C-alpha cells in the first residue's frame, strides 16, 4: 500500500465582488491509498451588497504558480477525475469529494459531467440553494479519497473553484 499521496488545491480568490480571499494554496495531508484525506473546510463569502446567484462548484487543472508535482497539472486533473469516474461507475471509491451540509458525509464526488466547469455541482449549502447573499458565509468541506488500487505515490495539484452569476 502506498502512503505518499498529497493533494494541493488552489483556493477561492475573487475580486469582483471581493470574496474573503484565501491566498495560500491548501494542502490535504498525506493520504494512504484506500482512504479519504482529512477534510478542509472552505468558508465562502463576498462583499457585494446584493446576492450572487447560480453558484456552482467545480474542479479544474491547477492554474497556480507554485506547482511542484510530478506529472503536470493536466495529468493530475485527469487522474483525480478518473478516480471519480471509476467510483461513479460502481468501482472503488476515489476522487474529489464535497460535503455541503457539514455532517462529515461527503455526498458528492466529482466526475466527468458532475463538478466540472461545464457542469458544476450546484451549491446547496447556505440559506438558499445556489445563492450567496450579502453578508452570508457558506461553509463546505472537501477532501480527496485515494483509490485502494493506487500504487504510484505522488503529489497532485488541482484547482477547486466557484462559478456564479452577478449583476454589477
Amino acid at each position, binding site marked *: 500500500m502506498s502512503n505518499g499521496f498529497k493533494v494541493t488545491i*488552489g483556493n477561492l480568490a475573487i475580486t469582483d465582488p471581493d470574496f474573503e480571499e484565501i491566498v495560500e494554496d491548501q494542502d490535504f495531508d498525506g493520504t494512504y491509498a484506500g482512504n479519504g484525506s482529512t477534510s478542509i473546510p472552505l468558508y465562502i463569502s463576498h462583499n457585494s451588497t446584493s446576492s450572487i446567484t447560480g453558484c456552482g462548484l467545480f474542479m479544474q487543472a491547477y492554474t497556480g504558480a507554485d506547482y511542484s508535482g510530478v506529472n503536470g497539472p493536466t495529468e493530475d486533473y485527469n487522474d483525480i477525475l478518473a478516480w471519480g469516474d471509476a467510483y461513479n461507475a460502481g468501482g472503488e471509491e476515489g476522487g474529489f469529494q464535497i460535503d455541503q451540509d457539514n455532517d462529515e458525509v461527503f455526498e458528492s464526488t466529482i466526475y466527468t459531467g458532475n463538478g466540472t466547469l461545464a457542469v458544476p455541482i450546484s451549491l446547496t449549502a447556505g440559506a438558499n440553494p445556489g445563492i450567496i447573499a450579502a453578508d452570508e458565509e457558506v461553509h463546505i468541506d472537501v477532501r480527496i479519497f485515494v483509490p485502494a488500487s493506487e500504487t504510484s505515490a505522488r503529489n497532485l495539484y488541482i484547482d*477547486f473553484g466557484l462559478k456564479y452569476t452577478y449583476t454589477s
Partner: protein
Amino acid sequence: MEGWTKYFIDSTSENGSDKLIEAGKASWRRGRLDGMVAADISNGKVTVSIGSPAVGQFWQSDTFISSNVGTKCIERRVERYISKEDFEANLYIYIRKKGIEASVLLVPFIAKPSELHSAGFEQYCAITRDLVGQWIIAELNDKEVSFYITKDKK
C-alpha cells in the same frame, strides 16, 4: 471596452466598463434604470446590442469563475423584458453583433422568417404574443454569441 453601455430615450448613455465597476464607479443596478431603449455588452472584441425604438426593461448579469488565480468573467449577458405594451405597440426589437466582421443579425432563431425585417446592418424581430412575459437574452463569451428566450432572467 469590456463591459456594458446603457442607452436612454433622451439620447444619453451610461457606461459600465469592467474597470469602472471594479473601482466602484459604475453599477448597473444602482445606476439609471428608467428610460432605457438599448444596451450593449462587449468583451473588447465583439459588441452585442439589444434595443428598440421604445423604452423597455433591461437587465444585465455576467457569469464568473473564481480559482486561486482570481476571478474571470466567462460570459456576459444582457436581457430585455417583453411586455404586453411592447406587443400592443407592434414593436420590433433589434439584436446585432458588431465585431471584426460586419454587423450581422442574430435573431432568426427567435422569430419566424416572415417576422424578420432588415434595414441596413440591422435586422429586427417582431414582438409576437408568445414572447410577452419573457426575456430575450443575449450571451457573449470569448468566442460565441448566443440568444434565447426565458421566463426567468438570471
